[in-house]
């Protein structure tokens, strides 16, 4: 055995040399923090650090489960994520199907280029654009509202109910063109003979969309949906944090923003790590389970 490893190392040493830097990176920046999660089971102090702070078991987890924030952040994260993912799946599919029907190649290209552009706007600038457009005094929304009703609208960013819609629809605005690329490519692979035959049999274009185009991209849709289910409890921090303010926290406090608030603002490292770990473990389970299910159902595995 040892001999075998020695021989392999001797033969492969150049490959391992290639991997020296990448492995060092993975160990330091990915695996070492995984050891760091043990502070979720300790009372972290600067002196004791990760290894020697006092062991307290599941105290911080219980504290989280019993806190009034528990239900709130879980349901906020879940609702925002499901809402976002339903829309983020449906709209690119519809867009791709419509685009595929148009026969004018130049028009198609122009449309596709333009709707893909916002994908490259940074999240800070996106929220900046939102704040300008929906500004009740100088923004397009405020100006239009004033022109129609004669008064200025209330500040949309202060409404508890608007956070989810702003978060989801700004994401759609930014990414539907980008997310449609994969469907558009899949649709270009539809066998033209199928369309020809259906047309001769008198099928209308709309019928052909339903019975030829849509079934053709169905496997792609299913794979992407399965992948998304695995990520249902991991809504990113970045945009939610920028859209969050004291007035909308009731809907905008997510697991990730709560971790930030508890850990880096209140410096309660152990408690915040416990919440983060709870979330990571749920995500891990979801990914593993959905992958198992998809292996059974569609014989496609994500890995």
């Amino acid at each position, binding site marked *: 055995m040892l001999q075998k490893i020695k021989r392999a190392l001797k033969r492969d040493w150049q490959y391992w040399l290639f991997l020296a830097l990448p492995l060092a990176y993975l160990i330091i920046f990915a695996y070492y923090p995984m050891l760091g999660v043990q502070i979720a089971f300790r009372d972290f102090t600067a002196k004791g650090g990760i290894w020697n702070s006092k062991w307290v078991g599941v105290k911080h987890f219980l504290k989280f489960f019993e806190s009034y924030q528990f239900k709130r952040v879980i349901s906020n994260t879940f609702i925002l994520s499901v809402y976002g993912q339903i829309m983020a799946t449906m709209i690119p599919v519809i867009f791709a199907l419509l685009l595929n029907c148009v026969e004018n190649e130049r028009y198609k290209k122009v449309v596709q280029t333009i709707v893909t552009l916002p994908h490259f706007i*940074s999240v800070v600038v996106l929220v900046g654009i939102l704040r300008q457009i929906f500004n009740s005094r100088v923004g397009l929304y405020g100006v239009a509202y004033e022109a129609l009703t004669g008064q200025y609208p209330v500040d949309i960013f202060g409404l508890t109910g608007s956070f989810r819609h702003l978060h989801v629809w700004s994401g759609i605005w930014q990414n539907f063109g980008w997310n449609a690329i994969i469907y558009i490519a899949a649709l270009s692979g539809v066998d033209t003979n199928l369309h020809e035959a259906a047309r001769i049999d008198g099928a209308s274009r709309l019928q052909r969309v339903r019975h030829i185009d849509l079934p053709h991209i169905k496997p792609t849709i299913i794979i992407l949906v399965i992948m998304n289910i695995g990520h249902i409890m991991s809504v990113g921090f970045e945009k939610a944090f920028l859209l969050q303010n004291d007035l909308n926290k009731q809907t905008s406090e997510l697991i990730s923003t709560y971790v930030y608030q508890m850990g880096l603002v209140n410096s309660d490292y152990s408690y915040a790590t416990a919440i983060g770990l709870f979330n990571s473990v749920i995500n891990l389970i979801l990914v593993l389970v959905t992958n198992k299910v998809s292996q059974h159902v569609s014989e496609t595995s994500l890995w």
Partner: protein
Amino acid sequence: MKQIEKFNANKKMKKSSSDRIFLNICTVVLALLMLIVLIPLLNIVASSFSDPKAVSSGKVWLFPVDFSLKSYKNVLKYDSVWLGYRNTIFYTFVGTVMNVIVTLLCAFPLSQHSFAGRKFVNKLLFFTMIFSGGMIPGYLLVKQLKMLNSIWAVLLPGLMSAYNVIITRNYIETNIPRELEEAARVDGCSPAKYFTNFVLPLSKSIIAVITMYYAVGHWNSYFNAFLYLNDRDLYPLQLFLRDILVNSKFDSSIIDDPEMAQVVQAQADALKYSIIVIATLPLMCVYPLVQKHFVKGVMIGSVKG
């Protein structure tokens, strides 16, 4: 012969009127979608070229009102924006070079069938995609490494993206025939030589794709800098933008006659529009030129990991 004629006739078969209506609806809906994307962007650009007074009194729709470069002149005087711009260019350039090198170093051995440790390292890499220590352990690590408040805190934690390694590995696996690897080995070509003489020249398009992914990521990111930096001299552009656009912090010293509160307010309103344009312009200009590479990247990425 007759059959071909019949086939051609079918091809030119007239569209039924319901099909024509459907096609027109498609065209119109697409045009609407395009407008929904364009209108906010047009409003931003139009406002940035309008007189601040017109912006502030809500007169601008889709075209500039009282054309003026006043906002852009104000941005020119806004030092922190340019400091941020300089820092972001530095982070993007240095960061992307480091990212691409490390990604290639990792992807190459993982694509070689003769490498015995391949499966193990693949698993090690893949696991980081589905589990992580999270925000706080990451922060404590950076603190422990004494990297807080240094450029390394921005450059190192995201040095390599597992996703990009996997698409690069897949590209090499599918585009460079395995026989070439074997033939090279039989001829006594070492892995390092094989990498520089064969793999690199044959991977140009995937290198272009991951370079753009990483560069856009650096240009747009604020999160690491936000967590790890306190020193304003190191801030990337996005953090200054966050102050100006999201938190409405505004340095009024750049305005000529700060006596009049109304003038200050108007120029502060208008400035945001021109800052948005200036911060986004580089990417928007480059994108149409490199669009096909990005599309290719999506397609390579859709091959399962």
